[in-house]
């Protein structure tokens, strides 16, 4: 059933969505194609298309099967063809990378590391064989890329964590992780936008708000953004808030 094209696979996700896979890993070239396809689909006004979700090397398209148009008998086939046509027009599987359709953004996120805000900082340092200060300087030196937004509204999965700082998530998740907590989970780092249970290792907290339901778009970050953390003091954190 999957329809194959070079570097691009379409498969159903239930009876009201389909997933386009653009590569085997979220490397920079694949991410650029994912972004290009997602924004092309959002502009394309395909009949029946309801929502577009880029994440890692995939773009998922939600659609209303009763509203798709085309000569094919099955709504999935109609939507697949429309999506592939849009992908071809956006040249997402061309050898040369598609021109970025979105402005390249770098978002700086202030973080107060350690102490009560980062209860796992010492453990991450021990695991890495570094001092807490070295963990902070390594974590805040890198430019990360938003690989996906999800799990809860506004949560960014950030790729690019230095190998040395990687650490498995906690065996038992915390029942309550405060909003703004910055954590490390496996080879990714991220920020909890709201207070929820969570299993990542918490190294600090940001006073920035990552999600406002009154804003459009409501999330501070979007897939493909570059993110840099900046270490701030407890006093700066208090002023920011």
């Amino acid at each position, binding site marked *: 059933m999957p329809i194959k094209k070079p570097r691009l696979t379409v498969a159903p*996700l239930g009876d009201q969505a389909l997933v386009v896979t653009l590569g085997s890993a979220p490397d920079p070239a694949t991410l650029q194609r994912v972004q290009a396809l997602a924004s092309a689909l959002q502009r394309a006004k395909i009949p029946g298309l309801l929502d577009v979700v880029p*994440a890692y090397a995939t773009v998922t398209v939600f659609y209303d099967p009763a509203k798709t148009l085309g000569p094919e008998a*099955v*709504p999935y086939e109609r939507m697949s063809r429309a999506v592939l046509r849009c992908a071809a027009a956006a040249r997402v599987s061309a050898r040369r990378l598609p021109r970025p359709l979105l402005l390249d953004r770098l978002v700086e996120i202030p973080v107060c590391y350690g102490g009560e805000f980062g209860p796992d900082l010492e453990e991450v340092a021990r695991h890495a064989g570094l001092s807490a200060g070295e963990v902070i300087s390594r974590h805040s030196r890198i430019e990360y890329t938003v690989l996906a*937004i*999800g799990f809860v509204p506004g949560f960014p999965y950030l790729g690019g964590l230095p190998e040395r700082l990687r650490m498995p998530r906690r065996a038992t998740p915390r029942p309550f992780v405060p909003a703004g907590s910055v954590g490390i989970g496996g080879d990714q780092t991220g920020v909890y936008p709201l207070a929820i249970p969570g299993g990542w290792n918490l190294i600090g907290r940001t006073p920035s708000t990552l*999600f406002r339901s009154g804003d459009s778009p409501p999330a501070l970050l979007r897939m493909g953004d570059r993110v840099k953390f900046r270490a701030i003091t407890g006093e700066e954190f208090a002023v920011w808030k």
Partner: protein
Amino acid sequence: MEIAVLRAGAFSTVQDGGRRGYRASGVPLAGAADPFALRVANLLVGNPEDAAGLEIVLDGPDLYFPEACTVAVGGAEFAGVPAWRPWTVPAGTRVLFGQCLRGYYAYLAVRGGLAVEPVLGSRSTYVRGGWGGWDGRPLHEGDRLPVGLPEGGARADPAPALFVAPSILPPYSESPVVRAIAGAQAAELDPLTATAFKISPKSDRMGLRLLGSPILRRQGGDLRSSAVSPGSVQVPPDGQPIVLLAEAQTLGGYPLAAHVISVDLPLVAQLRPGQTLRFQDIELAEAQRLLVRRERDLALLRSGLRSHWGGGP
């Protein structure tokens, strides 16, 4: 008009057709756990299908109507409250939801719809985030729910004397056979269709946790998270599947065994902890044929009711 909440019930929330277009920001669809029941209840009172109504769980509320209003209840059936037909609540009376006789989620549609402020294009309540619906939370005693004005009519317009034909309703049951199409990792997992599953009490609007012989993954490597959907059946490492419902998170990283087809998802949503279900395989083309046919049935109901309620398309 405002409906006064005399008793809130277990977990009564304002819900509509859901929040569309914000999944890329991680915002769940939300809306009614059994969207079919809310749609039909809305049609019965002459509302747009996705108007906001009250979702009621198992232990229902006690509501006071200061003015007359035509209402309909769909989904779970409660003692003392007519189901699947419109009726007019006289001014100054109470609607008391008695014992829940069948099902889990009921929908009270009021003519004019619940007129809470929309958030991100929807009036549904997102309790986890604390926003949307009525103050981002389930109802409390003393809340006063605003009711809107129906287009081209009055809230108390008399209801047509009709029932919904049982043939249009999903075959709700305490032990349904639920049809599902294969998920991306189906071939790596034990089949879901071999045994029955019991509904765990740890279920909620995000998903139904199932208890049964563990579904083990025989092969396959690490998975990156990608989008999931209401109906997706995830299998965590403990082998106890989770059927995602309306308020499911937008991304998931567990293997996907199957997807419950849209026309059968109401059967799953209406199950109570302790009740059982079985899965049955179905092809995608057949699932979509059934979905398009159900939409046609709903369109017939809509046009039949339009002759009574009038109004636009």
